[in-house]
C-alpha cells in the first residue's frame, strides 16, 4: 500500500521544500541586442513527495522555468536573476561542473514533451539508460545492465530484458516516453520535472503514462514539477497548482481550491474555456463555446447552432474507400508488405452537417480526408460529391472540382507560403479557378477577413506577422474564398491554446450557420468533437468501428474501443486526483499486413437509428 500521507500537501507542511524558487526573472537576448523578460518575479515551492503543476498557455514561460531549474538555458543568450534552491543547492550560483555534480541527473531529472525526438536515435535504449546510471557513480557494466533492465520493468515495458537492446525507432511514442521515464529514474531523483510529458501522445496512451507517473511517485517518494497546458491533466495529477500568464504567476494554491473557487479573472477564464467531455448531455444541436470575458473571467451564454442539416441528399457519399500503401525493402526494392491505412470506409455527409472522424494517431483518419480529395492516388472505392464520382474524373476536371472541397490544415504557418502576403494567398486560388477579376478577388478577400474576425488591412501582412489563432482564421478565410460546399478540417484546432481553440470552433459554427457548409472534422480531441459534431465516426486501425449521432456515440458507446477512447479523456475535476485507469499496457498496433492478407468482411449492427457498430470477432 502506498502511504497516502506522502502524496498530500498536508504532510509537506513544515518540512523543508525540495525546490524553492524565489523572485525568479529570466531574460532572453533578442534582436538588436535587446533583452526581453520572459519570466518576472516568479516564486513557488515544491515540498518532498508533492506534485506541483505549472499551467498556462503557450508563451507563459512554464517550460523556461523548468529549463532554468536544471540550468539548461544557453548562458550566452539568457540571463537569470533571483534564486532557485534545489535540494540545498543554489542553482543560479553553481557552475556547469557543479550542475552536473549535484543537480542534473542527481537531485533532479527531467522528461520532455517529444518522446519521438528526445531519445538519441542511434544508441540502444539500454545504453542510454546505462549511461545515466554510470555517469554519476562507478558501476560495473554488468551491474548497470541489470539495473537498467530493472528500471525498464519498473516502467512496465513488456519483455524488458529483450527490449533493452532495441533502438528507439523500434518503440512507439508511449513506450519511448516510458524509456525516458526509466532514464530519469536512474538517479533516483528527489524531484522529477515533467515538461508536457503526455501532450504529444494519444489519449489512451496519455492515460497509461499518467497512471504510471502516479504509481512511480508513490514508489519512489519523489516530488514532481508537472508542466502542462491541459487543465484535465492538472486536475488529475497536481496537489498544488501555479497558474502562469506571460511569465508571471497569476494564482497559486491547492488544486482543489483553484478549481472550486478561482480568485483571479484569468484563472476563471482559463477554466471556463476548457472543453469538458460530457457537458453536452441533452443538447440537441452543436453548441458554441461560451464567450469568456478575459477581464472578468465570466463566461457568457453558449449559443447553439441554429441551422439544421438538410437530410434530403448527401453532399458527400463515400463508399468502400480503401487506401493501402506499399512497404518496400529487400532485394531490388520489392513490395514486402502493405499498410492498410484505410479499409472499407463508408459514410455520408449532408449539407450543413458536421461529421467528425475520431481516433488515435495512425488510425487512418487523416488519410481518409486526403484520399477523398485524391491527394493520394492509391485509393479505390467511390467518392461522390453531389452528382460526380470524384474517382472517375480526369485530372483537369478534378482540379476544377477541388474548388468545392477545401481543407483547413493543422499547422497554419507551415501551410502558408512565407513569402506571399495573406492577400495574395487568398486571391490566388480565386483567380486560378477563374472566379472573377483580381479586383473582385480583393474585395471578396476583404469581406471574408472581416467575417473571420480580422480586418481587411491585414491582407497586406505576411503570415509570420500573425498569432497562431489569427493564422488559423486566415486559413479559414482562404478555404471560404472558393465558396466550397464541404470543408475538411484536419486537426485544425488541435495545436491552438484553449481560449483560441474555443474562438475558432465558434467561428466554424458561425460559418456553418451562415453558409450551410458541411464539415468533415478530423480530430483526436473528443471534448471538442462533442461540441461541433452532428455525427461521429470512430476509426481504429483503418476501419470505422462505430458511427452514429453524437449523443448516441458519446453517451451510449457500444464498441470496446470507443469506450476505451472515451474513458481515457481527462476531465478537469480534481476529484479524479487518485483515479487509476488500470489500462493494460498496449504495444503499438499497426495496420501493416503481409501481401497476401485479405481483410475480413465486416458486418455492422444498427443498435439505434443511424448508430452502427462493427460486430466484433
Amino acid at each position: 500500500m502506498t502511504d497516502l500521507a506522502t502524496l498530500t500537501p498536508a504532510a509537506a507542511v513544515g518540512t523543508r521544500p525540495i525546490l524553492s524558487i524565489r523572485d525568479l526573472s529570466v531574460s532572453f537576448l533578442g534582436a538588436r541586442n535587446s533583452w526581453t523578460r520572459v519570466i518576472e518575479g516568479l516564486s513557488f515551492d515544491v515540498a518532498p513527495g508533492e506534485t506541483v503543476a505549472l499551467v498556462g498557455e503557450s508563451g507563459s514561460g512554464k517550460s523556461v522555468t523548468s529549463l532554468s531549474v536544471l540550468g539548461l538555458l544557453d548562458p550566452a543568450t539568457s540571463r537569470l536573476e533571483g534564486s532557485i534552491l534545489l535540494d540545498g543547492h543554489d542553482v543560479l550560483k553553481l557552475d556547469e561542473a557543479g550542475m552536473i555534480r549535484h543537480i542534473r541527473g542527481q537531485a533532479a531529472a527531467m522528461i520532455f514533451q517529444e518522446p519521438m525526438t528526445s531519445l538519441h536515435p542511434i544508441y540502444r535504449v539500454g545504453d542510454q539508460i546505462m549511461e545515466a546510471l554510470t555517469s554519476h557513480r562507478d558501476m560495473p557494466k554488468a551491474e548497470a545492465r541489470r539495473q537498467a533492465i530493472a528500471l525498464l520493468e519498473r516502467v512496465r515495458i513488456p519483455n524488458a530484458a529483450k527490449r533493452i537492446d532495441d533502438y528507439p525507432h523500434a518503440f512507439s511514442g508511449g513506450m519511448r516516453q516510458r524509456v525516458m521515464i526509466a532514464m530519469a529514474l536512474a538517479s533516483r531523483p528527489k524531484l522529477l520535472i515533467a515538461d508536457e510529458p503526455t501532450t504529444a501522445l494519444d489519449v489512451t496512451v496519455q492515460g497509461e503514462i499518467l497512471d504510471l507517473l502516479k504509481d512511480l511517485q508513490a514508489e519512489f517518494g519523489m516530488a514532481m514539477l508537472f508542466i502542462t497546458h491541459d487543465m484535465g491533466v492538472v486536475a488529475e495529477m497536481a496537489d498544488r497548482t501555479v497558474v502562469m500568464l506571460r511569465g508571471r504567476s497569476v494564482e497559486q494554491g491547492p488544486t482543489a481550491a483553484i478549481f472550486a473557487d478561482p480568485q483571479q479573472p484569468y484563472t476563471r477564464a482559463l477554466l471556463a474555456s476548457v472543453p469538458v467531455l460530457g457537458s453536452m448531455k441533452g443538447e440537441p444541436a452543436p453548441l458554441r463555446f461560451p464567450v469568456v470575458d478575459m477581464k472578468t473571467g465570466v463566461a457568457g451564454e453558449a449559443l447553439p447552432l441554429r441551422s439544421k442539416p438538410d437530410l434530403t441528399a448527401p453532399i458527400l457519399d463515400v463508399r468502400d474507400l480503401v487506401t493501402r500503401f506499399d512497404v518496400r525493402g529487400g532485394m531490388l526494392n520489392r513490395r514486402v508488405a502493405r499498410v492498410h491505412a484505410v479499409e472499407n470506409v463508408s459514410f455520408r455527409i449532408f449539407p450543413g452537417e458536421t461529421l467528425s472522424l475520431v481516433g488515435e494517431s495512425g488510425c487512418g483518419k487523416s488519410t481518409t480526408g486526403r484520399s477523398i480529395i485524391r491527394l493520394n492516388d492509391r485509393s479505390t472505392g467511390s467518392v461522390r460529391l453531389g452528382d460526380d464520382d470524384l474517382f472517375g474524373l480526369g485530372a483537369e476536371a478534378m482540379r476544377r472540382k477541388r474548388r468545392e472541397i477545401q481543407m483547413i490544415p493543422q499547422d497554419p504557418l507551415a501551410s502558408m507560403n512565407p513569402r506571399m502576403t495573406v492577400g495574395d494567398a487568398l486571391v490566388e486560388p480565386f483567380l486560378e479557378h477563374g472566379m472573377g477579376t483580381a479586383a473582385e478577388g480583393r474585395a471578396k478577400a476583404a469581406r471574408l477577413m472581416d467575417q473571420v474576425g480580422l480586418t481587411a488591412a491585414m491582407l497586406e501582412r505576411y503570415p509570420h506577422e500573425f498569432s497562431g489563432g489569427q493564422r488559423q482564421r486566415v486559413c479559414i478565410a482562404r478555404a471560404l474564398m472558393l465558396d466550397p460546399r464541404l470543408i475538411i478540417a484536419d486537426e485544425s484546432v488541435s495545436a491552438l491554446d484553449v481560449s483560441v481553440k474555443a474562438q475558432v470552433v465558434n467561428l466554424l459554427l458561425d460559418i456553418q450557420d451562415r453558409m450551410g457548409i458541411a464539415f468533415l472534422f478530423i480530430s483526436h480531441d473528443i471534448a471538442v468533437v462533442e461540441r461541433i459534431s452532428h455525427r461521429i465516426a470512430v476509426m481504429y486501425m483503418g476501419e470505422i468501428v462505430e458511427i452514429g449521432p453524437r449523443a448516441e456515440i458519446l453517451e451510449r458507446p457500444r464498441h470496446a474501443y470507443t469506450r476505451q477512447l472515451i474513458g481515457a479523456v481527462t476531465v478537469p475535476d480534481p476529484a479524479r486526483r487518485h483515479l487509476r485507469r488500470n489500462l493494460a499496457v498496449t504495444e503499438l498496433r499497426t495496420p501493416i499486413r503481409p501481401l497476401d492478407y485479405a481483410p475480413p468482411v465486416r458486418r455492422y449492427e444498427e443498435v439505434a437509428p443511424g448508430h452502427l457498430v462493427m460486430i466484433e470477432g
Partner: protein
Amino acid sequence: MLAAILSRLLRMVVVMFGISVITFLIFFATPSSDPAARIAGKNAAQETIEAVRKDFGLDRPLYVQYGLMMKRLFITRDLTSFANRGQQIVPAVAAAAPATLSLVSGAAVLWMLGGILTGITAAAWRGRWPDKLLMGISMMAVAMPVFWVGEMVNLITQNRLHDTWAFSWVPALGYTPFSQDPGLWFRSMVFPWLTLAFLYIGLYGRMLRTGIIETYQEDFIRTARAKGLTGRKVLLKHATRSAIIPIVIMFGMDFGVLVGGAAVLTEVVFGINGVGRLTYQALKVLDLPMIMATVLYASFFVVVANAVVDLLCLLIDPRMRRA
C-alpha cells in the same frame, strides 16, 4: 545481407553499362572524332582512311563496334589505343592506378583526421577565437585553387628552400612505386598529400562544425544534458556521432571521384603519372579506347566507394538498417 550485396553488385553493373554506352555514343557524335582518320594519321589519303576503317572494323554497325570494344577491354584485354599505335590500354591504366590510389588514399587519411579535428574543435569553441581562426583558415583552404597551392609548395620545397635543412629530404617531382622503395615513395608523396588534403580539410571541417552545431538544437542533446553528462561526453558521443553521417557520405563520393581521376590537377603539378593525367591526355587526342577505359575505371571506384559508405552508415546509424 547476401541479397543486399547481390543487389548492390547488380546495380553497379547497370550503372557501368549505362556510362559506357553514353561515353561510346557521345564519342561518335563529337565533331572530327572519326577514329579512322586519327589512326591513319595527318594528311592521309582517302583510300588509306577507308582501308583503316575496314581494318579496325569501324565500318560495322555501332552496336557491333561497342560489343567488340567491350570484349577487347574486359575479356581479351588487348584493346589498343587509337592515338598511339600499339599502346595497350589495360596495362597503361593498371600502371597509372597505383600512383593515383597512393595519392588519394594518403590524402584521404589526412583530410578525414584533419577535417574531423577541425570541425569538432571549432564547434566546441564556437564563436570564440579558436573557431574563428580555424574557420578563417578553412575558408582560405577552400578558396585557393589546388594547382596554385601545389605550385607554391613546389616553389618552396623544390626551389627556394630546397637546399636548407628543412626541405633537403624532399625528392624531385615524380612518383616512385611503393614496391620499389617505400622510403622514397613516402617522401615523394608527403607534399602532394598535404596539398590535396588541404582543400578537403577546409570543406569537411566547415561541414562538420555546422552539423554539430545544428545537432545541439536536437531534443536528444537536451536529454543528454539533463541526465547530467559532461560537456565533453555530450559533444563527442552524442552530437558528433550524429553529425558525422553526412561527412561519411560525402567522403565516399569525393574519394571515388578522386581515385577515378579528379585528382588530375594535383597529379600534373607534382608530376605523378596517374589516372587523371592519363584521362586528360586521352581526351586531348580523342582516344576513344583510353577514354572508355578510364571512364569505366572511374565509375567503378565511385560505385564501390558509395557501397562501402552505405555499409559504414549502416554501422553508424541503426535506423538505416530497417529498409
